[in-house]
């Protein structure tokens, strides 16, 4: 797998800082699992946070160190970290999606396009969805709003920006208008994160508009 399209440097930095909205952080983490180049980059970016942390003035504590018991010193390795993806779902997503994309309970959105919403934390303001686009389907021209990120998980699509294949990220800003066409043979499955729900509804409406004629 040769990855051609990566997240914007600023997006990777925000991920390294742990400051990215949850939905977008999920997409970037999944890309990192597939992209050694970005993993190296993010290692370097994480040093910024550590350097800043190390130079913070310590805040005096009012309590002493808690009493710790040896019995409690058991590594509670997160379940997520133990999961090694068996199928085509990147490891960070496996706890929420399962190991294989074939097991996703798709809901049809409109002809040739299915979606599956990924549940986020109750406080998260963004939106994270999987889309499955039938081979050769062309989405209407649309524009993105603010922070939005797409990761290709299977197949590919092409638009005027190029061809986006498995592992590629489309980190588009609102200046870009595009009408992606899913691969004629494989179609395309992608994970799309946006920062706010309201904006996303706008996108769905625009996507539906030419089809429903509203």
């Amino acid at each position, binding site marked *: 797998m040769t990855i051609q399209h990566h997240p914007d440097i600023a997006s990777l930095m*925000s991920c390294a800082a742990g400051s990215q909205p949850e939905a977008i952080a999920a997409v970037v983490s999944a890309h990192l699992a597939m992209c050694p180049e970005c993993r190296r980059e993010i290692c370097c970016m994480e040093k910024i946070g550590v350097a*800043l942390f190390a130079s913070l003035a310590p805040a005096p504590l009012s309590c002493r160190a808690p009493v*710790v018991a*040896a019995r409690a010193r058991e590594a509670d390795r997160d379940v997520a970290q133990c999961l090694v993806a068996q199928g085509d779902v990147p490891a960070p997503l496996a706890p929420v999606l399962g190991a294989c994309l074939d097991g996703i309970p798709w809901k049809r959105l409109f002809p040739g396009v299915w979606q599956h919403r990924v549940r986020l934390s109750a406080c*998260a303001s963004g939106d994270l969805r999987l889309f499955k686009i039938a081979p050769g389907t062309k989405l209407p021209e649309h524009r993105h709003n603010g922070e939005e990120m797409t990761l290709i998980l299977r197949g590919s699509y092409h638009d005027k920006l190029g061809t986006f294949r498995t592992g590629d990220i489309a980190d588009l800003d609102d200046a870009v208008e595009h009408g992606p066409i899913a691969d004629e043979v494989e179609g395309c499955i992608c994970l799309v994160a946006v920062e706010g729900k309201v904006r996303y509804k706008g996108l769905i409406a625009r996507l539906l508009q030419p089809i429903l004629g509203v």
Partner: protein
Amino acid sequence: MLQVLERGRIRRAPPVTPSRTMADLLQRVAASGDVEAFRKLFQTYAPRVKSYMMRQGTDPNTAEELAQETLLTVWRKAGLYSGEKGSATTWIFTIARNLRIDRLRREVAWQPLPEDHNEKASDDPAPDEELSDRERRDRVQAILGELPQDQSEVVMLSYIEGLSHSEIAERLGLPLGTVKSRMRLAYQKIRDGLEDLR
């Protein structure tokens, strides 16, 4: 705030407690549940974690609770730490950052990299890794101290105050694109500055 280091000053005076010692303390906790080693780690890191949490806008009591919880996580997970993967400070900061996302933002802390991540293909022990990690951090601190104010401001807001790009744009009254380009400019300098240490 950031300690501004003058250009050309290659290395700072040795820290009161050398970083290597911190990694040793962590390994003692991992190997034998050394309570005394844990107490020393707590004294060194808990006040910094508290300071970090307060920068997120939490009250001092909550910040202190989160600092306690961070260090208790260090105690529990010490077995997962390996000195080859970076300094004790890097590892403990990662735990604090993830706890901050979980507790203060109430979101899932999608890990940029798993805690047991290691990009190096080699299985050889790397005794100098801890030292070079420290060296890189000093270099990053020096570069951060030299950034123009408009760039260091967005970096601080992102890394220490935990704001997303959109939140930074709103806070500073700037277009989103300007925030991103300042972040990119800052990183370019840091990346260039670390080129010979990579």
